[in-house]
């Protein structure tokens, strides 16, 4: 804990992220404009503090600030949900492979290797093509390719934990494999998994943003930062702020997650000191 607090960049990032999350969740309720309400008198208004649209409006008169916050909700939600599922999958996969060892381990890890070889974005696109652009399907598609790092890490840790005495003791007492995995191995991995989760989130948000930017992710009427950036890129010559604000929010959020992850890793890794 101490070490983490000493890392100013990480602490700043954490504060920033909490701020952003709060803003995205609560903000839209506090602001006067709804994210999809069109204001015909204020089309393509540049940002300014003088009028009520602080960050300007788009070509349909929708307030950019609100849309950024609402988009943030979606982006963050996708990020967190996908991370949770891919971590869960990765932990189960890795712990099982590491604990059972032998041929099972070999096969499971071979599958991981093959997954790495596949260009994930393409498969995600393929999945979206076939299954459609439902929010949960997007989560599923991205999860399918984000679990491997966690699986590898967890497997490694499991392999070393397996040899430790308390696991031997449990086995000697006849505790079932599943119970050992769940009760002994998994809790010891939590610290590392937390770090990995923080690192996975930005990657996932980025993937969703790319998909949305290409027009293959989140669908109207929902919006996300990726969608906003896509829209903003179309209006570049007449309303550049439509690109800049969502891009800024996205970049800063990704940056913060990275610093946070680094800080956590430094703080939790005993070897690093």
């Amino acid at each position: 804990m101490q070490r983490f607090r000493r890392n100013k960049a990480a602490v700043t990032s954490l504060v920033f992220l909490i701020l952003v999350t709060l803003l995205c969740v609560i903000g839209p309720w506090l602001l006067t404009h709804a994210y999809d309400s069109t204001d015909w008198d204020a089309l393509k208004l540049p940002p300014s503090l003088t009028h009520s649209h602080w960050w300007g409006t788009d070509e349909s008169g929708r307030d950019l600030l609100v849309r950024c916050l609402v988009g943030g909700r979606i982006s963050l939600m996708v990020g967190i949900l996908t991370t949770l599922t891919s971590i869960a999958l990765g932990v189960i996969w890795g712990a099982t492979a590491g604990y059972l060892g032998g041929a099972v381990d070999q096969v499971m890890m071979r599958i991981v290797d093959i997954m790495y070889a596949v260009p994930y974005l393409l498969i995600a696109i393929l999945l979206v093509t076939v299954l459609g652009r439902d929010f949960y399907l997007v989560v599923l598609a991205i999860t399918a390719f984000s679990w491997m790092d966690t699986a590898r890490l967890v497997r490694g840790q499991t392999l070393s934990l397996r040899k430790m005495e308390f696991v031997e003791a449990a086995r000697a007492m006849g505790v079932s494999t599943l119970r050992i995995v769940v009760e002994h191995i998994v809790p010891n991995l939590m610290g590392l998994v937390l770090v990995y989760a923080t690192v996975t989130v930005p990657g996932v948000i980025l993937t969703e943003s790319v998909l949305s930017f290409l027009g293959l992710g989140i669908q109207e009427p929902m919006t996300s930062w990726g969608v906003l950036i896509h829209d903003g890129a179309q209006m570049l010559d007449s309303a550049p702020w439509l690109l800049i604000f969502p891009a800024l929010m996205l970049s800063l959020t990704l940056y913060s997650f990275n610093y946070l992850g680094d800080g956590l890793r430094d703080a939790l890794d005993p070897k690093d000191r």
Partner: protein
Amino acid sequence: MFAYTFRRLLSTIPTLLVVIGVIYILLFSAPGGPFDSERVVPEAIQAQLMSKYHLDQPYWKQYLLYIWQLLQGDLGVSYRYADWSVNELVGSALPVSLAIGGLAIALSLVIGVLLGALAALYRNSFVDYFVMALGSLGSVVPSFVLGPLLVLAFAIGLKWLPSGGWDHFSWQFMVLPVSLLTLINVSTLARIMRASMVEVMGSNYIRTARAKGLPMHLIVFRHALRPSLLPVVTIVGPLAVSSITSALVTESIFSIPGLGILVVNGAANRDYTLVLGLVVLITALVVLVNLCVDLIYAFLDPRSRA
């Protein structure tokens, strides 16, 4: 060396088969998938699908026939446009992507390695800080943000270059897309090259080389360069994979008629067979690139040819 090549080749085949198999199964068994019998498809296309994909055969035969067809270089037909085969569509799009992608990779390798080496040899100089800053930029700003920013600066602001489009490989339309791709890759490559070279230059065998009284240029080119390049070579594999993402984004931003746009539009149109064919093609290319990278690595590092 030859034995190693052969062994590596052998191990890529199962990977490819599994990948294609999985994709195939996904498409053909997913509810609401393209070959679901409830789908209503125009006559002409239905006939083509039937003959091309042998939909009247049992699943395993379909799969094998599909593989056989792939081996003959036939990527299938479009689901939406009766007149077009995937091969034809690829034929017109592939050269465009290759031109831009190839140029970008070549440039980024040369510039990246050069910058990284200079930063390592002249630490804490201007070059060094520049490379570090570039590295940070590349990891913070996503390609689909950087791209429009470049357009904003050079096409809209300075009006030096067109903001997109394509005209038979004429250079003005290539500058921005190639620059974007190069910028993204250079940041990673330079950072890795720098770290690698710093480590090599601090190693014991470089100390021996200095102790032998060898001139600096000899030490850098004969003794330090090869070991320093190894991590760079290793990263080319993953870089190639991420280049696909970058290519998709770049072609979208600049409206380049390459493979990327083909995939994106195919997906938007729900042109299943086209996307299937393209995914298979690109996966095969990626596997090939990874194989080449492994071979180059083995060539460079005598220790790995166990």
